[in-house]
Every structure is written in structure tokens, then in C-alpha cells.
């Protein structure tokens, strides 16, 4: 990260901010996608995250790594989006579902793909429920493909701490997913087939 660019951006120069954030924009978008699972939502959350970063740049004092600070903001934006979506769904769809209405998935695709998407949605929702430190470590290392060493440097903790956080996160995810059903999409498909058989 260029310190000079950061200072210029903190003074309110949009061009400096663009140059500063250009290398991080792809990862910001991906983090948003991992949380939301939707391209448009990821773009919206990514933009919102950029605006929040721009507004809060003056408050950044270098207490943590700039990248960590940026990813946290992106994750928070995604979480806000998820909460909002959940609220909207409970307000609009859930009462309809309770009344017996089952909306069909408008997007085309095989049943297996639909089930996998459902599985991924549940997994994303579970990830969103994780504590912040575990969630950061899990997303960076398991979804973003950052090495433990790099993640430790980015998060400002030791490599062992990162590994520990990841394992704890996985254990929780496993528990939560096991409560809802089978983890493997293959198993879910088999169960579905069994249920559908006359």
C-alpha cells in the first residue's frame, strides 16, 4: 500500500483513492459475493463498501493493516445486506410460505444445482453467523485462498492463531449444518430422490 496515496486519499482526493483501492477491488467484490452469493448483491455491497471506506478514510489511524480494515468493512456491508434481506424475506415471503405458497426458483438449472445452491446458501448464512475473528480467518484462508502466513500478517496475529480460528469456525459450521441436515450435496440429492420416490 502506498502511504502517499493513502494520505492524498485521506485529504479527499478521489483519484488517489481510486489508485489506492484498485488492487483491492476484486477481493472486496469476492468477499461480498461469498457472503451474499449473488452477483448484483455483491456489486452493490462492494460499492457500498467502497463508499464507506472513502467516508471513513479520515478515521483510519493505522492501528491495523489497511487491507484488514478494508475487508472488515466489506464484510460488514455484506452482513448488513444479509440482515436486510432476511428481514425483507420474513416480511414478504415467509408469511406467504406459511400460508402455503411455495415460490419456484425462476432461474433455470438442474435440481442438483439448485440443491447445491441451497447448500451453499445455508453454508454462507452459517459463515455469516460466525464470530468476526473466525469468519475473517475462514473467508481469507478457505474461500479467498490466502495462505495462513499471509492471513496472519494481514490480520495482525500469529499463524497458529489463524489456524485455530479456522478450525473453530469449521467445527461450528459443521455443527450448525448437521442440525439442519446432511452436509454433502450428494447426500442431500440422494435424500431428495428418496423422498420423491413413490
Amino acid at each position: 500500500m502506498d502511504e502517499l496515496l493513502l494520505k492524498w486519499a485521506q485529504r479527499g482526493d478521489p483519484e488517489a483513492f481510486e489508485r489506492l483501492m484498485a488492487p483491492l477491488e476484486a477481493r472486496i467484490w469476492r468477499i461480498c459475493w461469498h457472503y451474499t452469493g449473488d452477483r448484483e448483491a455483491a456489486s452493490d455491497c462492494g460499492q457500498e463498501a467502497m463508499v464507506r471506506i472513502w467516508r471513513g478514510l479520515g478515521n483510519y489511524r493505522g492501528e491495523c493493516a489497511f487491507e484488514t480494515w478494508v475487508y472488515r468493512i466489506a464484510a460488514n456491508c455484506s452482513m448488513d445486506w444479509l440482515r436486510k434481506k432476511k428481514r425483507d424475506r420474513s416480511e414478504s415471503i415467509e408469511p406467504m410460505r406459511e400460508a402455503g405458497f411455495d415460490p419456484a426458483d425462476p432461474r433455470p438449472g438442474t435440481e442438483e444445482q439448485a440443491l447445491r445452491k441451497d447448500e451453499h446458501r445455508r453454508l454462507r448464512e452459517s459463515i455469516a453467523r460466525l464470530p468476526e475473528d473466525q469468519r475473517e480467518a475462514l473467508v481469507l484462508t478457505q474461500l479467498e485462498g490466502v495462505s495462513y502466513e499471509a492471513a496472519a500478517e494481514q490480520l495482525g496475529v500469529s499463524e497458529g492463531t489463524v489456524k485455530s480460528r479456522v478450525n473453530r469456525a469449521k467445527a461450528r459450521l459443521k455443527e450448525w449444518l448437521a442440525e439442519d441436515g446432511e452436509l454433502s450435496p450428494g447426500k442431500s440429492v440422494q435424500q431428495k430422490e428418496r423422498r420423491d420416490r413413490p
Partner: protein
Amino acid sequence: MNQNKPYPETDSGNLSEQEWTELDRELAQMAEETPEMPADFHAQWTERIREEAAREEEKQGEETREKENREKASEKKKENRGQWRYILSAAAVFVFLITGTLLSRNNRDRATNSPIKTETETQRTETAAGSAAKSAANGIAADADDDVAVRAEYDTLGGADFAVPEAEESAEAEEAAEIRVYSYRAEKTAGAAEQDAGARRDTYRAENAAEAPAMMAAAYESPAENAGEETEEAAEEEAEREAETAESEAPAPEEKQEAAAAGKAEAETGKKTTEIGEETISFMKDMGRFALSALPWVLGGAGLAFLAALIDRTIRERRNRKQ
């Protein structure tokens, strides 16, 4: 995509190896299925940032303008308030001074016009005027040849006029008395000389009328007698010359009038000059008394003004510190 291996030695020891593998596979699938960032994402967020920056600039400009306006308004208010404060304090000090001076002056006047004091002062003035008139009359009478007559006549004619009835001031009375005495003396001297000359002329004429024929006859009759007669004649002539001289020395009635008028005019001029001088002196005395009576009030007013300025300064300093 995910290069990190699961970490088996954890506190979540309940998970089996298979479960770990399933979860890892699930996460790997998620990571693999992550789509590419949309191409327009960069343009979208940069546009939003520029809009945001422009909005902030506008907002800051408005805030700056509002702040400037507020500062200007507050400065104007402060200036007006300050001006009014100064004007009011100056007016208060002015009113205080004027009122105080007038009050003190009234008190002084009341004290001066009190009955007891007036009576005493009148008596004092009378005594002073009387003594001045008397002393003037005495001095002049002593200087004059016929001081007894002059004094008697002066006392009869003028002295009483100067003494007191109007309770004039002593110096004025003295001056007037002197002037009158001088005028009177000049008139008197002129009258005496005239009388003397007239008497001598009459005597001479009477003697001439009685003795001239006899003398003429005796001159024809005996030379020796004539010699004696000539001597007498010379004496008579001499007496006549003296009489003429006296007559010529004695002022004519017109001259006498002119001298009297000139003396009177001179006396009037002197009186006027003296009056002006007296008025000036009394005015200066009044002013001095006025200044002396106003001095405590002036000092009090100045003290009040100083106190007000001190309080004002203290309040301002506190306000500035708060700001």
C-alpha cells in the same frame, strides 16, 4: 484455489476425518464457484466515489459559507453591541457629571442665599463700604488745603450716598468716592480762585474810584508828595496785575464746565473699566468654584467609567476563553 489444508489438531475433536473432508470440499466448491468480478464494478464504484466527493465538496462549501456568514453576523453583532455599550456608558457618565454638578451648585446657591448668611454678609458689606467711604473722604480731606470745609461738604453731599444703602462692594465704593472727591475738589478750587480774583478786583476798583482824583491833584501840587503817591500808585498797579493774573489763572465758567465734564467722563470710563475687571474676576472666581465643586463628581465619574471598562474587559476575556 484453496491451498490451505485443514488443521486436524483442534479443539473441535468431535469431527471425524470424513466430516472435515466434506466441509473442506464444500468450502472449496464455494471458492471455485466464485465468479469473476464484473467488468463494470470498477466504473460503478469510482463513479459513486466521485459523486460522493462532489457532494462533500458542495457540502463543505455550504458549511464554509454558512460559517463565514455566521462569523460575520456575530462580528457585526459584537461590534454593534460594543458601540452601544460605549455610547451608553459615555452617556451615563455625562448625565452623572451634569446632574452631580447641577446638584452641587444648587446646594451651594441655597447655602449662599440662606437668610442668616445674607444678613451677616449685608452687615459686613455695609461696614466695609462705610469704612471705605470714610477713609477715602478722610484721606482726601487731609490732602486738601481746605480739608475741613471739603470734608464737611463732602460728608454733606456725597459721602452718605456711597455709604451702604445699596450695600455695594467696598472697592467700588472707594473708587467712586475717590472720583467724586476729585471732581468736587477741582470744582471747589476753581470756585475759590474765582471768588478770590473777584474780591481783589472789586477792592481795587473801589480804591481806585475813591482815591484817583485826589491823587491826581496831589501830583500837580507837590512833587514830594507825588513821589509818595507814585509809590502807592505802583503798589496799586502791582495789586491790579496780581488780580488780573489771579483772574486769568482762575478758570472761566466754560472751562470749569469742560473740566468737570472731562473729569466725569474720565470717572465713568474708569468706572466701566473697573466694572469689567470686577466682572471678569468674579466670573473667574465662579468658574474656579464651579470646577472645584465639580471635581469630586468628575473623579467619581472617571472612577465609574474605569470600573465599567474593567468589567467589560473581564467579561470579554472570559467569553474569548470559552470560545
